[in-house]
């Protein structure tokens, strides 16, 4: 789910890769395409792709084996899960609550789920 499509493109790409890790499509140790390959696949400037990879590397989600390429970290799924739960609670939940107040809804809407 994407609540904020106004994020910088490089963060949106990082989110897509994170979601693929969450869903299990990408697993720890999997190789991911090079910056230029991935950029060509989605029609994005290599500089933008590089920033996505740098962000994911800094967050410990992927890592670079020099001269070989980028790989998904073994504990990537846990890292993504923790980060996304935090983001959900801090950003998405307040937005949902604000919207619910605006629409006159309360938590009883979740009870039937």
């Amino acid at each position, binding site marked *: 789910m994407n609540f904020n*499509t*106004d*994020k*910088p*493109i490089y*963060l*949106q790409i990082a989110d897509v890769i994170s979601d693929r890790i969450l869903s299990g499509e990408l697993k720890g140790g999997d190789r991911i395409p090079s910056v*230029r*390959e991935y*950029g*060509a*696949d989605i*029609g*994005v*400037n*290599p*500089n*933008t792709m590089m*920033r996505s990879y740098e962000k994911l590397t800094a967050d410990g989600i992927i890592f670079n084996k020099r001269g070989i390429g980028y790989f998904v970290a073994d504990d990537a799924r846990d890292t993504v899960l923790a980060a996304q739960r935090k983001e959900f609670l801090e950003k998405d939940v307040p937005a949902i609550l604000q919207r619910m107040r605006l629409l006159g809804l309360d938590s009883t809407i979740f009870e039937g789920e």
Partner: protein
Amino acid sequence: MIDISNLGFSYGPKSVLKNISLKASEGNIYGLLGENGVGKTTLLTLLCGLKKPLEGSITVDGRNPFNREPSLLSDQFYLADEVTPVHAKAMSFAKEHGVFWPKFDLDKFFTILSELEVAADQRMDAMSAGQLKKTWIAFALACNAKYYYMDEPTNGLDIPSKAQFRKAVTKYTSEDSTLIISTHQVRDLENIIDPIIILDNQEVLVNATMEEISRKLFFDYGSELKADALYLEQTPGGCIQVYPNVTGEESKVNVEAFFNTVHAHKDVIKAMFNL
């Protein structure tokens, strides 16, 4: 490395470029933007050596393009806005003209041509404008040049080809190549151009990476109006506002809104981007 220093050019008494200084480094796809008539095409033709600077200088890896040394000519490609409907089949044209670029790759030409859905045995002078443009794009990329100067490359392309073009410029150019793409079709190329160069009447207003732009300006897509907005544009989903980035939070750069902001506040922007 392209180094333009105090470049000046005029057509007779009509001055087009004046005191232009600009550096373009390897491995980047520059977007050259500017209103009609500010000299984008003139700048590209000066860069590839078709015209001689009247003032100042241009060097490409230390060489003056107007000297037209074979070593530089075989490492650059100028893709004009209006391309020639050559009196030959696409494949024969490629075979005959590819020899001028030592790194030309005929297989690559066929691959790109088929990705762009143009038949290689078609005569170029019998093609539609879009097919002809695609043939030239395929030929250009197959030349494996280091420097590409492209003037409105997406003009005349159909919708699927625009996406193919975006992919092809990354897929089929090498990591150390430099592309300078002039365009009015900002939406076609928004995700592929970075840095952005904005040329105005006789000056460069901005030469900045997307990262730098999003660091200095905030693009707000919300509906709450901000008093310090430099630029405001109504959109179907609310509006786009552009204002100085004071929080450090990053936003998605909208190149059209950026261009309009720059034009409305030239001095503010020039000071902001240290030009």
